[in-house]
């Protein structure tokens, strides 16, 4: 695979005038952003620490245009980075030098809602929440609910295998997408799955979902819709010690309960959130847990009581139950606003995404506190506790020399510890450019070689989102010299 590296090195600097002319023949003027000030908004995604101004931004309006663009870029060997809403947190949509950004922003149509079959067929630029809104009149919704759901697109969700606060019970994107129409880098269209529950051949949906825009461009998705529960209520429990909260999480699951949501926030996170959205959180508590139950009124009643007992037995100092839908939404609004709330109290932050076995949650939080002192940086913790998925938000000030480097080193320590604890460097945000290096900690050289093989089966010239996710052998040997590679 040294080939791919050499190819990347030999790419000419900048998109040539001839290429621009050829693209202009495919796309109307309004679909092609060439002026620097028009391209600026595309220079990064949610991982703002990394920026690269793209040479050109393309916003095709029809599938035919999009496929023609891909074919041309393939022929010209021009790198392409697909982009949804740009809310990704790992740099998956960060442009690459001398390449084009292919925005799916114009593909915003919900093509079909089939209430009887409980499916929706949508274009890739449709926002996550828009699907649930369109399904609401039928008593249905799209279950995966990332906190960014007002903005992020289904195409981006598919690329990242996005999760949300209700994924323990209702699954991730991979469990809720049943069909895809995908264009390869060569502009060939693949139809995978559809409205059936499985497809002949290899499970390409599993391979494409979570592939971070490196294997194909999603043109259309068929997603499963879930009936809305009759009732949902949420418990909020306060704990004086992190370890108690960690044990409570294991105890709930151990009691045979799969809550509709099970989230944890530490004091730094609740303080930031409370000042921002006034969710009514207990600011005295070291940690709070949110545990949701949904179903029929009888089911919810039984489950809430069962969870309350487990939480109290685990040492909760206070347990509150949402009295009505407005209060339930208020409790969740705080959790869902955690990232922007932290964003208000620090010039910059990076969000980690390690996932660990639940039993290590308390140990991990203790270590994060130690790292925080060691690196001299504040950290707020928000967890998808039910899934063991951590989101430490490391706060720093990029204008202070050395702080970005310290924040990155802090994050790396958390990710390496996640792998050591038997977990992974990323649960739902993806590797992107941010965690390429840490892939060498999680995978052996032969495993990474297979990833490169899979990439080349779809995209032999490595033109689609190059340089993301899978490190080159050279990067890994450098990483290995510094220590923790597998």
């Amino acid at each position, binding site marked *: 695979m040294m080939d791919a590296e050499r190819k990347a090195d030999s790419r000419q600097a900048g998109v040539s005038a001839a290429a621009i002319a050829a693209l202009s023949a495919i796309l109307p003027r309004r679909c092609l952003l060439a002026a620097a000030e028009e391209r600026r908004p595309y220079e990064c995604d949610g991982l703002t620490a990394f920026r690269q101004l793209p040479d050109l931004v393309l916003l095709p309006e029809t599938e035919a245009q999009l496929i023609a663009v891909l074919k041309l870029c393939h022929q010209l060997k021009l790198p392409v980075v697909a982009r949804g809403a740009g809310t990704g947190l790992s740099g998956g949509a960060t442009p690459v030098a001398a390449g084009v950004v292919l925005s799916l922003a114009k593909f915003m149509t919900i093509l079909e809602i089939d209430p*009887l079959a409980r499916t929706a067929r949508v274009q890739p630029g449709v926002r996550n929440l828009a699907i649930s809104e369109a399904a609401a009149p039928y008593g249905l919704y799209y279950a995966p609910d990332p906190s960014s759901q007002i903005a992020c697109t289904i195409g981006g969700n598919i690329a990242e295998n996005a999760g949300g606060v209700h994924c323990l019970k209702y699954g991730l994107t991979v469990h809720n997408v049943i069909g895809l129409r995908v264009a390869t880098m060569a502009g060939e269209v693949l139809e995978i799955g559809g409205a059936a529950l499985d*497809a002949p051949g290899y499970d*390409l949906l599993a*391979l494409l979902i*979570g592939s971070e825009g490196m294997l194909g461009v999603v043109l259309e998705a068929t997603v499963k819709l879930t*009936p809305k529960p009759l009732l949902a209520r949420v418990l909020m429990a306060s704990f004086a010690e992190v370890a108690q909260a960690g044990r409570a999480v294991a105890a709930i699951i151990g009691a045979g309960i799969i809550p509709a949501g099970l989230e944890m926030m530490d004091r730094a996170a609740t303080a930031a959130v409370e000042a921002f959205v006034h969710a009514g959180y207990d600011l005295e508590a070291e940690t709070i847990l949110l545990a949701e139950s949904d179903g029929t009124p009888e089911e919810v009643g039984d489950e809430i009581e069962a969870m309350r007992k487990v939480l109290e037995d685990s040492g909760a100092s206070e347990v509150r139950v949402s009295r009505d839908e407005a209060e339930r939404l208020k409790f969740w609004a705080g959790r869902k606003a955690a990232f922007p709330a932290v964003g208000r109290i620090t010039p910059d932050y990076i969000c980690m995404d390690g996932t660990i*076995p639940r039993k290590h949650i308390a140990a991990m939080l203790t270590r994060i506190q130690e790292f925080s002192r060691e690196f001299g940086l504040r950290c707020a913790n928000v967890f998808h506790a039910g899934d063991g998925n951590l989101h430490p938000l490391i706060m720093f000030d990029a204008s202070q020399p050395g702080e970005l480097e310290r924040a990155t080193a802090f994050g790396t320590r958390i990710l390496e510890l996640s792998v050591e604890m038997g977990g992974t460097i990323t649960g739902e945000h993806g590797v992107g450019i941010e965690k390429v290096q840490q892939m060498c900690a999680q995978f052996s050289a032969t495993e990474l070689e297979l990833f490169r093989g899979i990439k080349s089966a779809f995209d032999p010239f490595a033109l689609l989102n190059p340089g993301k996710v899978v490190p080159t052998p050279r990067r890994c040997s450098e990483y290995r010299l510094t220590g923790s590679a597998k």
Partner: protein
Amino acid sequence: MSDCLGEWCERIREAVARGHQLAIVGGASKDFYGRPWSEACSARLSTLAHSGIVDYEPSELSLTARAGTPLAEIEAALASQGQMLAFEPPHFAGGATLGGAIAAGLSGPRRAAAGAARDFVLGAKIIDGRGQPLAFGGRVMKNVAGYDVSRLLAGSLGTLGLITEVSLKVLPLPAASLSLRLAASQGRALELMNDWAGRALPITASAWEDAGEGGALTLRLAGSRAAVRAAQRELGGETLELEQAGAYWRHLRDQRAPFFDAAPTLWRLSLDSTTPPLDLPGTTLIEWGGALRWLRADADHKTMHAAMMAIGKGAHATLFCASLEARAAGVFQPLGSPLLALHRELKRRFDPAGVLNPGRMYAEF
């Protein structure tokens, strides 16, 4: 145990060197499924020696076991802790192993409600077609580091790698469960099942069969006591005896129900659950709320595949049970040319010399 793995790596490397092909077998419960191994597949590689649960922590909702572990052993360990494999994998004649269950990727009656085998795969260890041991995924609930190779293995019929170990997500057993039977024609049953699935009802399995005059729809309700009781009142019908109900779903899962006895040829049709009754010859049994239809008929490949193409939306037909000759002619719905090319490319990345179960899925790879 590691001896076993070392030996298998060696056997695969040797097969590559000598141009041999290997037939991977677990409990042999699904030898009937898929295309038959080619004549050139001279040697069988049995996974039975690599057996045992490696790690099981009920509060982590995950279980890791070696490929040769009998499903029955895993299910017993889970049941002792009040948990289960929610995709209800078929055992067929018995002896089914974990490796075989994942390689075949088949799911039982709970599929429409809980998800398929692939939905519960968290991680896997394999030996690829170069004889290299590799590990993907893990034991945690969420993992998006790299491509999701472990889920890709589900249903790959051993053509991508020899699966040596699998980690699965497991779920608590429902607190209560009961089964109902209602009289309904096929068309009416399809309407009812789709309508119910759109409401928050605790239906975890459904089956419609032609029962002489009109047909019978059997439903399994499972979940909290309160929810099951409420649904029982709402849906009506006759409640089955507990034991009778258990046997009914087990026999359906393993295809030991009377429907599966008769004619030798059995087609499996997977399609949009709302598809109306099919105008095809033969007798039908419907599962998964309408999304899975078994057809006992001597229909030929061309007719069945054309019928699925006409339905569209990803409908596809599998020749599930048939004579060796018929299966050799093709089992799965043919892939379109770009998809077939992609499958071959992928196979080449995992198994460049084509030593692992070649032709078991499609003749072309």
